């Protein structure tokens, strides 16, 4: 049976056959509230190592909140969230889970890269300084080694010639590519993308998406909230459609995008399609 699967399994998923137990990310009944507003209402999710999971959904459906919970930028109110087998931001306590100390949390976060809708580059540092900041000051890598690694990463995102530029001098697409390099500099095992191209013009969005595509092909585990349906279709191993704080539908991107089962998914994809040939959707 395993032999039959060989032919169809993308190379990066081969590892799963031998070590089936531990997914890279696992969410069990995750709840998150802002005051009285419940944003995540018992969410279940599993992402295997090497897999690219895309999250689609309307504005306010909780995509950003989910991503921010995965690296514990937000506390969860209930449930369990595992990254690489470790409870993220908490330790097990039987009936409850207890938040861990900041030192341990920082170590966990260092293994998870995140790219935001706005690049959030550090404006007082040059491109190179942005990329080596965390390796040098968080991981205490020797500066020379960090610079060498940073140059390799910046070359990969096509910005080797802008090492000494300040972020304010870069275009939006260039800024996002630096942000990706900055996250990769920590050698993360998981990358989170929160609508990395939503604030960009369609022409520059392509250059960012192609960097992400390359990353996916190298086997990086990625969770990508996005409205770029072409990316979802071509790069995603799985897609989930979120609405109202739960996952309404999930599956293979081709199936879900072409033959959505749920009414809400159908409605969302129809609106999306009509927007795609006209103006782009809003900032969310």
């Amino acid at each position, binding site marked *: 049976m395993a032999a039959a699967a060989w032919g169809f399994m993308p190379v990066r998923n081969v590892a799963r056959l031998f070590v089936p137990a531990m997914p890279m990310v696992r969410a069990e009944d995750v709840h998150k509230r802002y005051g009285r507003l419940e944003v995540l209402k018992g969410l279940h999710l599993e992402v295997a190592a090497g897999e690219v999971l895309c999250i689609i959904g309307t504005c306010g459906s909780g995509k950003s909140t989910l991503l921010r919970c995965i690296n514990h*930028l937000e506390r969860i109110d209930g449930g369990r969230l595992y990254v690489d087998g470790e409870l993220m931001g908490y330790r097990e306590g039987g009936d409850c889970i207890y938040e861990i100390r*900041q030192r341990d949390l920082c170590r966990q*976060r*260092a293994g998870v890269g995140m790219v935001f809708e706005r690049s959030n580059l*550090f404006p007082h*540092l040059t491109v190179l300084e942005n990329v080596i*900041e*965390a390796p040098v000051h968080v991981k205490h890598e020797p500066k020379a080694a960090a610079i060498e690694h940073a140059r390799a990463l910046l070359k990969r995102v096509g910005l080797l010639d802008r090492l000494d530029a300040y972020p304010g001098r870069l275009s939006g697409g260039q800024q996002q590519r630096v*942000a990706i390099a900055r996250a990769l500099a*920590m050698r993360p095992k998981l990358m989170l993308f929160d609508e990395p191209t939503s604030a960009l013009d369609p022409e520059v969005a392509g250059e960012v998406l192609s960097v992400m595509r390359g990353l996916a092909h190298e086997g990086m585990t990625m969770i990508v909230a996005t409205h770029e349906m072409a990316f979802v279709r071509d790069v995603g191993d799985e897609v989930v459609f979120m609405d109202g704080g739960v996952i309404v539908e999930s599956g293979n991107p081709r199936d879900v995008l072409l033959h959505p089962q749920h009414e809400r998914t159908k409605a969302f994809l129809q609106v999306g399609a009509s927007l795609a040939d006209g103006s782009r959707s809003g900032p969310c």
Partner: protein
Amino acid sequence: MVRAIPLRRPWLWLGSAVVVALAVVLAVAIYRGHDIHGAATAQLQFGPAMLRGLQITIVLAVLSEIIGIALGILLAVMRLSPGTVLRLGSGFYVWLFRGTPLLVQILIWGNLALLFEYIGPFKTTTLMTPFVASVVALGLNEGAYMAEIMRAGIVAVDRGQLDASLALGMSSALALRRIVLPQALRAIVSPAGNQFISLLKATSLVSVIAGGDLLTVAENISPANLRSIELTLVAALWYLVLTTVTSVGQYFMERRLGRGGMGIHAGP
């Protein structure tokens, strides 16, 4: 060629004339009014007593500013922390120290021995010399003002900067030191400079507890040579020099921070 005549602005001329006239009247009044001894004043200006007072004024201001900055960062971080007690504590401090006159605070610190005879195992009078009392009073007061300036500066930094720092695995202290504060500095340097100029002048208040500063010196000498107005002017001139130097420094620091590196908001 057709000549282009700018609009005539008679009010501008009239206003300027009034300013010049007032300046002349003032100069004449000063010249006639009091017989200021030019030579004697010049001698006092650079006399050893005055220079010693000047030195103490500068040391007082710098020490108080250092205390004020450290305290200001601490209070601002407390104010922005999620802990209610810390926030209230910080708010109470600022309320108390901004809400009472600095002169009163200086008098209290200077006369602390009347309240507590001992501080721990030490006698208050030996510990709280007039100079120490002056530094403590000015520093604690400065801290309250710096706290507000720092808080405004930190709040002005985009929230996404902290998110990005934490997502990279930085602790909040590291993020504050490496990422947030350097950016907050832009919004801080101008009001902090003004605050330091206020502090420079406020050091003169410690003369009420004989803090040893410029004005203390001036007041100490005047009964001996009876040139009290000259001495006051001599002190005033030194304060002007100090505040002018500070203003120039502030100007260059603002220009440096506003230019080049600071990215997104900076022009080409």
